[in-house]
């Protein structure tokens, strides 16, 4: 530690840390543009010039390391002159038209110009004009306003891991741009909007919607992934205008994924349900809540009496809040049914269901020395965890990937093994067996049977040694795709065996509020009918909680068929569309995440509650209120809640603890058919839930592309080419899909995404045939 003096105030600072950081800690503000505590130091704006005793000229506080005995003046005449001089230089070319700039009112340059700028410029020369760039559907540009701080460039290089923006040209001609008209496609691109200290990069969907001072801020929790990023939801006249990250070092630091940032756009989609509706003689009729809920309760009672409790089931989206999940489970149990499931994209329910958790805190995820990713495209599943992992890699973490597809992780992997689905299972078994041999553990026979006596490759041997050496600093991560695999139980068993034998932490990452769903449902997940059962045979009554069956269920179109044969389908949701209108009988409008109080439990087990930022749209109601009243109409006990806090406390108290013992040791492999192409599952980033699928700007972004991909050789073998239409068949069904080619996919395989129109006809099938 060094003792320094800033403006006469003695402070302790770490030797070698930068002056500006020391001043920030002591609450002394030094003006800055290019400095950002999460980015590397550029020292190119010169705004933070300060006077340091014995230094012949002002020094930039962001690039001056603290040394013992340093005496610094941030407000002396020399410092102020230097800062004002810098401001004058920055304003030579910056337009002085704040009233028509979208950043006005929340602009760092505007704020500092008040303190350091002059009321008139000494310059009469024309200002520099820089052409705007098209950076895609999310980021709007006014490049004339750019002050070349390069925060956006450094974010891409250092955090997002793909350098898309750069500074071309030199001196007065330098411009921030992408490579010759490319768009910015990173899943974290929106963060450059927050980083930009001026109005050069602003939010495209929010452009010219309103002024920052017209909005109120509400805290919120992002509903899309298992990270539970903290949000600042900005509201004007009861409408969500914009979503920004709220800083939380333990969770999302100061970042936000584009999915969490821009999905608010669908909150006022045309497809929002705004009134309760009943289908009467095939016609949809709007009605009031009482009529609708009485109708549902009466029908459910009749069905329950006539066909028994087991004939009713509920499918709930993992985006539901803890309170909604708890009440829905209670409602089902009150009616005597355990048929409730949130695992909508799972098809293998054998064995115990491991908790969908990270296995460490989010911050500690960075401290692993070795990470094994299995069936995971972490960057496009959990963008914030991807960012954390990339940081870890830069600090020396070795990441190994055992996947089907050779994903672009934006960080270097120590090894990447990409295999077809069946070969990958064997490879994982070989690894398990090898680790067992080296650690003197025993593994079930099924492992050796699956490994089939194959010699381990050099990479696998190295990986096994590394995992054993890493011990509890290892981390085995099972990705969201694994869940869709017909041999999911094999994957969970093998990864948990590896984790048990090496001491590595074990992650099983899932969507949204899955941790809460798992903890709420507990034994009901094993006892009752699971998603596959409920789709295999039509129930007499089915409650859909915020689900669009075609896209949210892996079974896709097949789920719609089953539901259309179900006696009564009640849809409690944010949205409706044609397919839903066809298959259900009652639709109850549900308040969206910004319109209800709720609780999210993230992958590290942090319980985060939020309150509604706006009123529910139209006649929609918060889920917990709908379920409370429905419970009352069904004359069930324990539905007399007055506040959501009562529901929450009850839910939290009843949560099933996350314990690692719920893992399997035995498994059987579901053999895949030999003919046809083996299917590789995928859930594209912007197709993951109903909210995202309707967010218009995100749907124009690069990650919204949901391609059916084959290896070029496979494509040639089936006589197709890039962009052509190929007829795939599964059993009796067949569908034409546009294919693309890439050698990141193994041969004889095809990537068919879930959650996407067209592909929903393929359903959960693990292999497809190419029809002539």
């Amino acid at each position, binding site marked *: 530690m060094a003792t320094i003096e800033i403006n006469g105030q003695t402070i302790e600072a770490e030797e070698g840390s930068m002056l500006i950081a020391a001043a920030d800690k002591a609450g002394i503000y030094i003006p800055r543009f290019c400095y950002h505590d999460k980015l590397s130091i550029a020292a190119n704006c010169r705004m933070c010039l300060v006077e340091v005793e014995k230094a012949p000229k002002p020094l930039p506080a962001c690039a001056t390391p603290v040394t013992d005995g340093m005496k610094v003046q941030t407000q002396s005449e020399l410092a102020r002159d230097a800062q004002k001089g810098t401001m004058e230089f920055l304003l030579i070319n910056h337009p002085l038209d704040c009233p028509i700039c979208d950043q006005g009112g929340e602009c760092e340059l505007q704020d500092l110009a008040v303190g350091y700028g002059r009321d008139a410029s000494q310059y009469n020369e024309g200002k520099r004009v820089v052409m705007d760039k098209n950076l895609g559907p999310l980021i709007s540009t006014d490049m004339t306003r750019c002050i070349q701080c390069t925060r956006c460039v450094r974010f891409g290089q250092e955090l997002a891991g793909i350098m898309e923006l*750069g*500074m*071309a040209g*030199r001196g007065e001609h330098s411009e921030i741009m*992408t*490579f*010759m008209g*490319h768009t910015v496609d990173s899943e974290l691109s929106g963060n450059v909007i927050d980083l930009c200290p001026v109005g050069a990069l602003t939010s495209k969907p929010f452009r010219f919607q309103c002024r920052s001072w017209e909005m109120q801020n509400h805290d919120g929790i992002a509903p899309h992934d298992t990270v539970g990023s903290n949000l600042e939801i900005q509201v004007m006249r009861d409408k969500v205008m914009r979503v920004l990250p709220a800083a939380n070092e333990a969770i999302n630091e100061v970042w936000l994924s584009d999915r969490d940032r821009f999905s608010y756009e669908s909150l006022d989609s045309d497809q929002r349900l705004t009134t309760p509706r009943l289908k009467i003689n095939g016609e949809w009729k709007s009605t009031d809540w009482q009529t609708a809920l009485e109708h549902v309760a009466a029908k459910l009672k009749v069905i329950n009496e006539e066909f028994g409790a087991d004939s009713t089931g509920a499918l709930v989206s993992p985006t539901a809040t803890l309170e909604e999940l708890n009440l829905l489970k209670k409602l089902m149990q009150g009616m005597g049914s355990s048929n409730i499931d949130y695992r909508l994209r799972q098809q293998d329910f054998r064995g115990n269901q491991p908790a969908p958790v990270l296995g460490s805190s989010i911050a500690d995820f960075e401290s692993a020395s070795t990470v094994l990713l299995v069936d995971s495209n972490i960057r496009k599943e959990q963008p914030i965890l991807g960012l954390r992992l990339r940081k870890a890699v830069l600090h020396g973490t070795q990441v190994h990937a055992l996947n089907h597809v050779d994903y672009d992780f934006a960080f270097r992997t120590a090894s990447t093994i990409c295999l077809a689905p069946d070969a990958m299972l064997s490879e994982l078994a070989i690894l398990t067996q090898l680790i067992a041999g080296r650690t003197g553990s025993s593994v079930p026979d099924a492992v050796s049977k699956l490994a089939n006596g194959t010699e381990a490759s050099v990479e696998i041997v190295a990986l096994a040694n590394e995992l054993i050496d890493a011990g509890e600093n290892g981390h085995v991560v099972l990705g969201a795709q694994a869940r869709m695999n017909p041999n999911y139980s094999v994957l969970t068993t093998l990864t948990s065996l590896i984790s048990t034998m090496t001491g590595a932490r074990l992650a099983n990452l899932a969507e949204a509020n899955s941790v809460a769903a798992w903890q709420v449902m507990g034994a009901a997940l094993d006892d009752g009918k699971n998603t596959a059962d409920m789709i295999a045979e039509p129930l007499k009554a089915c409650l859909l909680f915020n689900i669009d069956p075609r896209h949210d269920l892996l079974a896709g179109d097949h789920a719609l068929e089953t539901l259309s044969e179900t006696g009564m389908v009640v849809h409690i949701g944010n949205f409706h569309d044609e397919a839903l209108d066809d298959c259900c009988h009652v639709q109850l409008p549900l308040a969206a995440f910004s319109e209800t109080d709720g609780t999210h439990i993230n992958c590290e087990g942090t319980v985060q509650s939020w309150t509604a930022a706006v009123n529910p749209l139209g006649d929609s109601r918060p889920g917990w209120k709908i379920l409370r009243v429905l419970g009352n109409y069904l004359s069930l006990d324990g539905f007399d809640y007055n506040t959501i806090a009562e529901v929450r406390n009850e839910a939290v108290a009843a949560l099933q603890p996350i314990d690692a013992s719920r893992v399997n040791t035995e498994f059987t492999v579901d053999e895949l058919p030999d003919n046809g192409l083996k299917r590789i599952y995928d859930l594209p980033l912007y197709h993951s839930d109903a909210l995202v699928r309707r967010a218009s700007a995100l749907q124009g972004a690069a990650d919204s592309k949901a391609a059916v991909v084959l290896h070029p050789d496979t494509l040639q073998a089936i006589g197709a080419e890039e962009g052509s239409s190929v007829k795939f068949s599964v059993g009796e069904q067949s569908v034409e899909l546009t294919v693309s080619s890439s050698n990141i996919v193994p041969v004889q395989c095809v990537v068919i995404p879930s959650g996407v129109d067209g592909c929903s006809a393929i359903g959960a099938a693990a292999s497809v045939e190419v029809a002539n």
Partner: protein
Amino acid sequence: MSVPTTLSDASLAEIDLELAKYPADRRQSAVMAALRIAQDEHGWLSKEIMERIAEYLDIPPIHVYEVATFYSMYEHKPVGKHKISVCTNVSCLLCGSGGVLDHLKDKLGIGPGETTSDGRVTIKEVECLGACGGAPMMQVDKDYHEFLTAEKIDKILEGLDG
């Protein structure tokens, strides 16, 4: 003129020689040399060529573009067979670089940034080339010519082949 899209094996081999000077995980270090080699082959740097270099060096294309636009010696449009770079920085300016440009315009009918209609000569106005002691000066292809006079310029122009 067709847009160059690929690098010859000879150029790639030359880039490999440059790459050998740096650690294996620092391929970006060879970016300036790679751009020079590519420009020597094609005369200028097309988008496709910069993408090819980015791919070969395993760095983002924008990174190549940053370097290629920072230095004025890299060409982003086709240039004539001969490139005349006239220094107009302060020493040369004081010693009459304006006259050099005027004389070139009289002789060739083109100004800075332009190419003769026969595609033979391109004139560029450049910043200091570090030969202030010989001001006014210009660079013709790879050679420096100092203490320029009208006669000297005429002689240089006559000496250009093709």
